């Protein structure tokens, strides 16, 4: 077995911590480290056992929050929530990216791929925004997301955001969309989409804009790279051309989704 010396030293608390250990303690630590690594390697070779819908449901009462709660309302990995930096006056989309949607790696990766594979600006924008609403709420995030952005973006982009939620359950080999293993993990391997999703899929199959949400799902699949380096800068021009930034700031323009932006801005308000 090859040992990554740096990773091993880091696991012990760094060179300073290692310097304080005697030879016996170092040998013991190395043995434990190798045992752990071996366990990881053996586990990686086993076929993954995906949960059933019933097993996922059985986890509901093990949590102090519901799985559908938006990201700004829960702490990371069971920790307490952190105080949020207030939004600036006349907040822009970029302000929300920085202060409420961050780190937004997945949507930035998704939009980067759309850009690099020559997709239309409406699709690039849809990819950039498609999961942002998860900070606010998770169930039916396609519909919620489309509603949040609809007053400000092209109709095609809103359509793509609304319906990517449905199409992600249906593989499309011609378009390059596979059913991802992560859905077996989060929905259960025996999950079947509810009737309203099936009905929506039937409607979309014959829709002239079918490919708009489909292309969002295609990029969605390839945007879970923990090592990808992404930023919002490459999208500034597309945002400038297609996102109608209200002069009053998002949340204060009396649009149909202004209240959603205000909730994102001030999620600690009790009422």
């Amino acid at each position: 077995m090859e040992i990554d010396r740096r990773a091993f030293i880091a696991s012990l608390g760094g060179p300073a911590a290692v310097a304080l250990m005697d030879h016996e303690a170092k040998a013991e630590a190395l043995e434990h480290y190798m045992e752990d690594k071996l366990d990881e390697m053996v586990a990686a070779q086993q076929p993954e056992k995906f949960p059933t819908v019933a097993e996922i449901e059985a986890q509901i009462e093990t949590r102090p929050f519901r799985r559908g709660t938006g990201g700004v309302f829960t702490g990371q990995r069971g920790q307490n929530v952190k105080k949020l930096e207030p939004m600036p006056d006349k907040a822009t989309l970029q302000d929300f990216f920085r202060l409420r949607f961050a780190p937004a790696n997945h949507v930035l990766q998704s939009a980067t791929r759309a850009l690099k594979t020559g997709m239309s600006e409406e699709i690039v924008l849809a990819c950039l925004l498609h999961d942002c609403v998860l900070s606010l709420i998770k169930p039916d995030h396609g519909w919620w997301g489309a509603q949040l952005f609809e007053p400000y973006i092209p109709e095609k982009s809103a359509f793509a955001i609304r319906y990517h939620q449905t199409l992600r359950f249906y593989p499309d080999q011609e378009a390059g969309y596979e059913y991802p293993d992560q859905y077996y993990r989060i929905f259960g391997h025996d999950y079947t989409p509810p009737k309203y999703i099936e009905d929506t899929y039937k409607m979309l199959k014959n829709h002239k804009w079918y490919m708009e949400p489909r292309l969002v799902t295609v990029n969605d699949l390839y945007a879970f790279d923990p090592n990808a380096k992404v930023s919002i800068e490459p999208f500034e021009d597309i945002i400038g051309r297609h996102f109608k930034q209200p002069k009053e700031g998002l949340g204060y323009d009396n649009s149909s989704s202004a209240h959603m932006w205000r909730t994102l801005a001030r999620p600690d308000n009790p009422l």
Partner: protein
Amino acid sequence: MLKAFSASLLLAAVAAAAQAGKAQTVNGLQMTVAGVKLMEKAGLRDCPPGTNTVNAVQRPGDQLSVVTVAFKVLPDFKPRPPGTMKRAVATAADGTAYNTSVQFVDVGSVPEYSCDFVYRVPSGTVLKTLQIEDAKFDLSAADK
């Protein structure tokens, strides 16, 4: 008559060039099929690959055939506009064409790399050829 003769000559030329393990070059991008394997789970990574963590999983009745291709960017490679390089298409013995979800993204960004093209096909399907742009590879010899 002449047309038919020319067409058959062209087909023969394509067939001669279409051999797995033999490098073919398109627009300064040298490609060599390294192998075909069946996998229960296959990583969905673009070409050149990053470290995307999403996988395709085999389902009852189908199989994941993965074609591995080695790429080398030659000095005469010229970058093309984004999205103009088509996805690799595999064809089975019965003539059915299969698409992969793997896309070419920034193909000139790394000098040498290897890509896995994942094809979901019915169980028992043997892939016969792989086409990347104008390059056509015979997979019969590479299939394991």
